[in-house]
């Protein structure tokens, strides 16, 4: 058990050091690197999709396929829960 604690503490420390470095080295908070994608959406959303809400436009138009996937995930989870809670014939 002692060894497990030691390994866990050591590896968690290394992981956290790396993640903290990642958090520090990514762009400064509030000044994201705008290449093209997000700026394009902000500029063109109203013309292209007619939505006033940029997030809605992305969710239902530009990345609508992800939303289909999201609905499928929900459906999968519901089917899974029903499957798990069904009546099972015991042998």
């Amino acid at each position: 058990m002692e060894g497990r604690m030691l390994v866990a503490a050591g590896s968690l420390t290394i992981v956290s050091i790396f993640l903290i470095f990642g958090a520090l080295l990514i762009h400064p908070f509030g000044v994201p690197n705008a290449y093209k994608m997000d700026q394009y959406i902000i500029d063109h959303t109203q013309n292209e999709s007619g939505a006033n809400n940029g997030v809605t436009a992305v969710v239902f138009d530009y990345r609508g396929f992800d939303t289909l996937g999201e609905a499928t995930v929900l459906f999968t989870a519901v089917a899974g829960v029903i499957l798990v809670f069904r009546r099972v014939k015991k042998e």
Partner: protein
Amino acid sequence: MNILDILLQQSPALIVATPLLGAFLTPLIGKLGYNVRNIFIIIILAVTAFLVFLLASDVFSGNIHTYVFGGTTSTVLSNTVIRILFEVDGLSIFMAIITVILSLAAVIYSWAFMREETGQDKYYTLLLLMTTGMFGMVLTGDLFNFFVFLEITSIASCALIAFWTHKAKAVEAAFNYMVISTIGALFVLLSIAFLYGKYDALNIAKLASRITPVSFSFIDKLSLILLLAALTMKAGIAPMHMWLPDAYGRAPASISIILVGATQASLYGVFRICFTLYGNVIQIPEVSLGWIMVILGLITMLIGVFMAMIQIDFKKLIAYGALAELGYMFLGVGTGLTILSNPQLSLASNSFALQAMKGGIFHIINDALDVGLLFLVAGAVYYATKESSLNNLGGIARNMKYTTVFFLIGLLAVSGIPPMNGFASKLLIYESVYQLNPILAIIAILASIMLLAIMVKVFYSAFLGPKIDRFQDIREAPKSMLIAMGILASLIIFFGLFPDLIVNTLVEPAVKAITHPTSYILWLTGGV
């Protein structure tokens, strides 16, 4: 315009949409009766198979097929990619073919295997959803979309692993797999977020074109590490494999075979990340993935065979065998990566790097067929005898002749005995790995010999031996199960007899796809 052309153009979307539609309709069709529903599902998967092979014929002629959701290709040909798109190259279609073969075999097998069970509508729904998720994972060209399909696959497979809820261990294995796969997927999402934060893109090709040796920094390294760790865990590479034997062993046999495909879809993710997403930076010394992959492959192989040696549960033993087989793929592809990423080595030894990759990729489909067949045989034995412990089995070859023959074919194939397909791919791996370092080849051959010994143990203790009174009047497995096993067995023999044909038509485009990432990236700017 020809109808086939239209189908071909739309096929990437249709391959995902057909099983998805089938999944939504299954609970309704299920009301019409047992046979109607099963025929419906087989038709759905047959249509999907037709579409996959249609798309394959196009991709194998040298094209990269793209499909943009909610737009035409021209709308993304500017400097950025806004919409989600599917990008199908040789490797994707190779994995899609494996998926469709496995799921078709599983569905045909389930016809008789699941006859007595309750909750079949939900079972088939989830099976189709799992297939959908796997197709999405291998066909998509968008990282976030990859994450969504990863979740669909893992949620569906978790529910299916827990199918026999009256068995405590099945539920426990499902819970463990759920924790593992959720955390793995979350780390995938975390590294996607890092990449998004740095490059403001989600498209794999776009990101790959922006990750260059100039821009390569700590963030890229971090997301490479996280993606690699999470996807290798989901692919069941040692030492993060512990969930795999439990999940494979406790699930119904028809699910185990699709789970093989699901882990291989994660393996596809690893290859896609290493070769395409980080394809531009593969040669810089900070990214020395090759040896890591080789070492992990060897560890996986050895752990698989050592643990399989002491197993007495039929399906768990085969699961450990499958683990050992996973090691060969990693070994082959890792060898290729080691050589390709080393600029000093690459000129002289490029050809054997390609041979190693060919062996690794060819082994993916061989493993899917061999291990799938063995799982189906294990399921058939369980179906006939209601016994999963090898200690209590014996002498069933007298009553189950066909099953025995199928097991023999699977045994020879999985341990790489000459006339079968496993030999061709393992020969490729041995010969090319030997050039990198002879010790690697020796360990690989040793593992293969041990695998043969293990499978012979199963064959002896379950199928041979004197007649046991309890199994006096067990019957041969039902027809549908025999058909499913027969399909896989005949494919194994076909692949074994004509390896040159298979390598040239199926494997070569896949290898070309991962060793030439530029063609995957360049189509964005109108290139090849």
